[in-house]
């Protein structure tokens, strides 16, 4: 029995549309029942909620639920529309997928849809006194001028419930009470890797609760996308997770190419795969540097950056950019690789293999480092899946979630590589996953670098691209997890809605689970091993 048949069994009025991705529309009343059945299915439990995408179809607000099974890796998309535009509400699914707690807040923030049963319905990215919901189509862009008043954050939050007569009412949940010793870690703090702010309630040095406050670098990229043509939208992806610039852009290019029905040449596939892996090494080296620095050892920081500069040199010769490369374009890549590219990459990998032992000598085997990382900040496999903590964080807990392996794209189906898995789920496992992945990435590049076939590097496309109507999506494994592009086209030259699955948002959400009961110093180390990049979370 396929998933769609299962859904139709529970909810006969479900409709299936197949323009682009297959999407099952269920009425909002039966969403909870469908979600529960899919989540608890025996053969194919849909236990990983990839993302919830809020939508404003002018006739009504609603959401798309992207589900995946951690057992069979089957995927399904549910669509549901809220009844009333002004008083929109939907049932919360956070009882089945904890990641919904934070994703529903995002939709509330952007669209004003209230989720019945979600314990925390505050704004997440925008100020608490923000007026209106910016991603609604009728939002007035000038309605919120720059407000220089310091923002006061409430210590409690609202949970909505449905009264028997069908109206929605809220009651307050206390986050921090008067007795709590609450320390603001961030937004300007050296170890939050950007402008994340964590309100941390402490009992002595022990953490009793973390409330992440996001949005200090929320740039409204998704709203901007709606007024940009497809080639223009590409520029912003590099600035999401700047340490996964290639991979992010790869995902968007793939999504648009798939919608256009465009097939890129083998040469492009090779280049893109190699670039993705170089970017991964680059990011993991920076991860190593920053983690060690966060833990107070400054010298290894410079080791990581020394090797990273070599990758940046390689990038620079081919793409012209160091950090942000703007290299992938629709139908190929911006320019052909530099003549010395292959030679330099091979030299670099040889060099990296020779120095990686130094990294382990100075840090991995150090008794202080191991005692601070081992057994600290444990996320179990179930927690990781429920929280949607993809990438190295999930793999450290034993959840095989590598998109490259389970939904291969570009050349990942053809190359041989191992999906690095650990089972401990602690900070040390998260660290080791990344260190091992550096070597796996080297292995992948070595298989490809000598065999780049001749071919066109860029297909000619029209300057104005119009995509057919429908929903399209693509996902890639970036340096720190699954990055997804969810695109809805209404046949115009601009996307109707272009949403990115943030890799970091679930990781930040997981901080509370991982850190409770640990010390402040562990908070920094756990944050370091989670390896999030804030501009990617806030978008």
């Amino acid at each position, binding site marked *: 029995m396929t998933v769609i048949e299962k859904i139709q069994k529970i909810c006969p009025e479900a409709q299936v549309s197949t323009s682009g991705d297959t999407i099952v529309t269920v009425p909002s009343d039966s969403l909870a029942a469908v979600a529960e059945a899919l989540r608890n299915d025996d053969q194919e439990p849909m236990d990983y909620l990839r993302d919830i995408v809020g939508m404003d179809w002018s006739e009504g607000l609603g959401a798309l639920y992207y589900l995946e099974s951690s057992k069979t890796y089957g995927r399904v998309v549910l669509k549901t529309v809220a009844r009333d535009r002004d008083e929109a509400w939907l049932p919360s699914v956070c009882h089945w997928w904890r990641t919904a707690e934070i994703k529903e807040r995002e939709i509330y923030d952007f669209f004003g849809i209230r989720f019945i049963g979600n314990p925390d319905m505050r704004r997440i*990215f*925008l*100020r608490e006194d923000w007026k209106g919901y*910016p991603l609604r189509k009728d*939002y007035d*862009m000038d309605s*919120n001028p*720059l*407000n*220089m*008043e*310091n*923002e006061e954050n409430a210590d409690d939050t609202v949970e909505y419930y449905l009264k028997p007569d069908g109206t929605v009412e809220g009651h307050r949940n206390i986050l921090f009470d008067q007795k709590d010793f609450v320390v603001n870690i961030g*937004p*300007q*703090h*050296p170890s939050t890797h*950007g*402008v994340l702010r964590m309100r941390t309630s402490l009992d002595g040095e022990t953490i009793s609760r973390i409330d992440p406050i996001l*949005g*200090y*670098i*929320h*740039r*409204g*990229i998704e*709203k*901007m996308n709606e*007024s940009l043509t497809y080639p223009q939208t590409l*520029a*912003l992806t590099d*600035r999401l997770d*700047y*340490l996964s610039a290639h991979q992010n852009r790869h995902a968007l290019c793939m999504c648009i190419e798939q919608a256009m029905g465009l097939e890129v040449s083998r040469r492009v596939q090779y280049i893109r795969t190699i670039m993705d892996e170089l970017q991964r090494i680059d990011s993991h080296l*920076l991860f190593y*540097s920053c983690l060690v620095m966060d833990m107070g050892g400054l010298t290894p*920081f*410079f080791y990581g*950056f*020394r090797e*990273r*500069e070599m990758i*940046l040199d390689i990038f620079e010769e081919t793409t012209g950019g*160091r*950090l*942000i490369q703007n290299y992938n374009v629709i139908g190929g890549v911006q320019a052909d690789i530099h003549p010395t590219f292959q030679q330099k990459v091979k030299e670099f990998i040889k060099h990296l293999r020779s120095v990686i032992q130094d990294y382990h000598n100075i840090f991995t085997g150090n008794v202080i480092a191991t005692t601070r990382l081992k057994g600290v900040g444990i996320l179990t496999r179930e927690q990781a899946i429920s929280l949607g903590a993809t990438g190295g964080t999930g793999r450290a807990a034993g959840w095989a979630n590598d998109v490259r392996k389970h939904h291969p794209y570009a050349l990942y189906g053809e190359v041989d590589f191992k999906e690095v898995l650990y089972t401990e789920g602690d900070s040390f496992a998260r660290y080791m996953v990344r260190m091992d992945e550096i070597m796996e990435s080297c292995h992948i590049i070595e298989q490809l670098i000598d065999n780049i076939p001749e071919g066109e590097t860029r297909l000619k496309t029209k300057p104005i691209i119009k995509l057919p109507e429908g929903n399209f999506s693509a996902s890639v494994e970036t340096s720190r997890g699954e990055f997804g592009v969810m695109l809805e086209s209404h046949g115009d030259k601009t996307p109707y809605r272009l949403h990115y699955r943030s890799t970091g948002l679930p990781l930040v959400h997981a901080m509370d689970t991982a850190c409770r009961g640990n010390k402040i110093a562990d908070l920094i180390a756990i944050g370091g091993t989670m390896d999030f990049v*804030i*501009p990617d979370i806030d978008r």
Partner: protein
Amino acid sequence: MEVKKKTAIRSMQYDEFKNNDYLEQMVRDLNRDGAGIILGSVDDLINWGRSNSLWSLTFGTSCCAIEFMALGAARYDMARFGFEVTRNSPRQADMIMVLGTITHKMAPVLRRLYDQMAEPKYVVAVGGCTISGGPFRKSYHVVNGIDQIVPVDVYIPGCPPRPEAFYYGMMQLQRKIKVQKFLGGVNRQEKKPKDMDSND
């Protein structure tokens, strides 16, 4: 009128800096009433100290911050020029390098950090986003230029700027400090808090 203070950074001559008009204007203004020899030389000494010991506040919001880290790392090593220390506490920092987009939510925080810094303090706006909003200019949540919030001393364009551009901008700041007046001039760039409304 001949401008007397032509400040060179070691191994970089005056003429190698491209935009000097603004600094020359500043020197003209300062020297309008003449400068005493003793005060002038003490001034030069203090300015030499200040310009060669610029400790920056770590204030990275996005992409540019990574390039700033690269600037501190082994290849570019900004410690060579006196930018050795980065302080995390605004009280102990001399300049604030605004590295990355400033959003509406961040703007009051940036202003507050600036207010918390001890005089003399300088602001360097790095990257397109801080200068004008950059690629996010049309967004509903991005400040179009941090000069709306804090006074900016040096702009470093780029997205993100190359480390060499960072250096050029930071040296331009050094030169600017070298032509300032400490004694008999204005040490504070801002009014004293008691002259303003009470503020933290």
